[in-house]
């Protein structure tokens, strides 16, 4: 077995947390309102909301801050801004978010690599946590429901214990101080582990048949569903910062009053804003909400062509719950598109 599996009693979680917090700052989901959770710094394990499924912003914010200084300049030189990067521990990252980080890693690692993201990514420990889906989760449809990589440690809830998978060298190092608390997983533990994931797979109530999704997205580019949805679209851009794989940014200059120095900054941007695809002389390649909305949908569900060739939706359901207009119900949209597609095929056959 590639992963080293151990059993951590839930009663010992406090010690496990203590041990993690000795390595650096720990960030975990905490409850911020009746319905919302957010990754925040936690000092004690009691602050952690273990029941949290999706936080408002995904964990990408810890590697890719909402705004950051890239470089500073004055009249003679340009200097890269290299912030002090502290070691950070992200606790409670669910499978969809691990998949999301995997996609962000691919984009930011592709040459020329993005040092600002990667330097932070390399200076962190990711502790995954199993979850049970709610009515908005559809990671199973996107094939991101089972964690395969992207974590150092992963905890599966198997009743009174967690099954702790240690995936990386950093993970091995992190559990070393708490080895006395752990015991090697036995057959019974492995059965409980398998039962959990099997039950979880049955627990999804939301989803679609993903097989032909890329083709359907291509076929239905002119579907009137986009216009209907766009009539409701606020172009508020809420769907993009909350997406674990939305990486788009803007680069802006902030000049100082002295006229010689300043800095260049990167800020999260959204393809839903009207100026996103506008070029010099005000020519706009995506002037209307419909152009931007279906661009986003296509990017998520059809995704990249070469060289990456993957879809960029991980099925976390954040956009669905964050859209004030209720038009980011990806599952319903896909179901509608697939149905239209089937109807069309039937019609063509006749």
């Amino acid at each position, binding site marked *: 077995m590639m992963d080293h599996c151990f059993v951590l009693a839930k009663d010992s979680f406090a010690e496990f947390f203590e041990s993690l917090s000795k390595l650096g700052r720990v960030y975990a989901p905490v409850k*911020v*309102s*009746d*319905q*919302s959770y*957010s990754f925040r710094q936690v000092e004690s394990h009691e602050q952690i909301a273990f029941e949290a499924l999706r*936080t*408002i*912003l995904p964990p990408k914010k810890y590697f890719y801050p*909402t*705004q950051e200084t890239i470089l500073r300049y004055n009249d003679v030189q340009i200097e890269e801004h290299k912030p002090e990067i502290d070691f950070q521990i992200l606790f409670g990252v669910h499978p969809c978010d691990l998949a999301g980080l995997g996609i962000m890693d691919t984009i930011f690692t592709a040459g020329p690599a993005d040092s600002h993201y990667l330097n932070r990514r390399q200076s962190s420990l990711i502790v995954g946590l199993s979850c049970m889906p709610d009515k908005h989760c559809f990671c199973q449809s996107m094939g991101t429901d089972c964690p395969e990589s992207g974590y150092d440690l992963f905890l599966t809830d198997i009743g009174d214990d967690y099954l702790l998978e240690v995936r990386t060298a950093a993970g091995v190092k992190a559990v070393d101080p708490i080895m006395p608390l752990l015991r090697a997983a036995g057959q019974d533990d492995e059965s409980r582990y398998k039962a959990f994931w099997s039950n979880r797979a049955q627990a999804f109530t939301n989803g679609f048949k993903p097989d032909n999704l890329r083709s359907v997205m291509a076929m239905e580019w002119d579907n009137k569903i986009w216009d209907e949805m766009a*009539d*409701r*679209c*606020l*172009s*508020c*851009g*809420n769907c993009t*910062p*909350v997406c674990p794989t939305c990486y788009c940014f803007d680069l*802006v*200059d*902030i*000049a*100082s*009053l*002295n*006229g010689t120095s*300043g800095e260049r900054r990167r800020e*999260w941007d*959204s393809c839903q*804003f*009207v*100026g996103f695809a506008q070029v010099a002389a005000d020519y706009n390649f995506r002037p209307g*909400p419909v152009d931007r909305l279906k661009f986003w949908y296509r990017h998520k569900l059809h995704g990249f062509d070469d060289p990456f060739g993957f879809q960029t939706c991980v099925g976390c359901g954040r956009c669905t*719950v*964050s859209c*004030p*207009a209720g038009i980011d119900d990806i599952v319903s949209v896909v179901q509608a598109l697939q149905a239209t597609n089937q109807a069309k095929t039937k019609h063509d056959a006749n």
Partner: protein
Amino acid sequence: MTTTTEQKTLPCIAVESLTGCAGELLVILDNLEQLLPFVRIVSFPFAQSKNECGPVDITFVEGSVSQPHDIEKLKRIRSNSRWLIAIGNCAVWGCVQAGACSRCHVEDMLHAVYGDESPIKALPARPLSDFVHVDAMLSGCPINATQFLSVTASLLKDHLPYITHKPVCLECKLRENPCVLIEKNLPCLGPVTAAGCGALCPSLGAACYGCWGPCQSPQMAAMATILQEKGYQLDEVLSRLQTFGAPDTLFARMKPDAEVA
């Protein structure tokens, strides 16, 4: 202290006001120390008693045009200024006096306030750009100090300033606030309002009421539809959307039964 000769070489700026609450002026006053080493303030009637009316490099104008003499003053400012920058919602959109008051006749309002013999002449309030060419518009209620300083920094270099008009929702999401529109069904105008305030109201659990004026390309029709679905009446929604001076043209796409004032 700077010497007289040095003062002459510094760019000249002026801060003028028309009809407004002077909120912008207070922001500038608060940040004057940062500005002073780099500019000479030739006119700032709100803050200093000796004011010149010669040519200036940059004039910041706050307030809307609401009286006949505002127009004269504005035209004089324009002819004296290399850059004319509208600051604050009043100057950019006309603010409450243009929005909320647009449903009443000026004469009726004057009569209600001043009786039969009004000492003042009033016009329907309008933004500066309805009268003169404005080089850049920095909205706010009041303006954001950081944005103001950054705009000033660009202008001092003779560069067109960078001013975004992205919606409040962006700032709100980046602060990771629970959405009050979704979770509390509050009539939040974040999606159609220009950012810059740091999503102040939603961060405190209140709905955005649009005081910075519209964001770029606001989807007013969609906003109205969504608020109506939450149980708000159309006239109530429209009045909320128009309170801070969003011009009628932004409502052109609304349903025909919508009563656009």
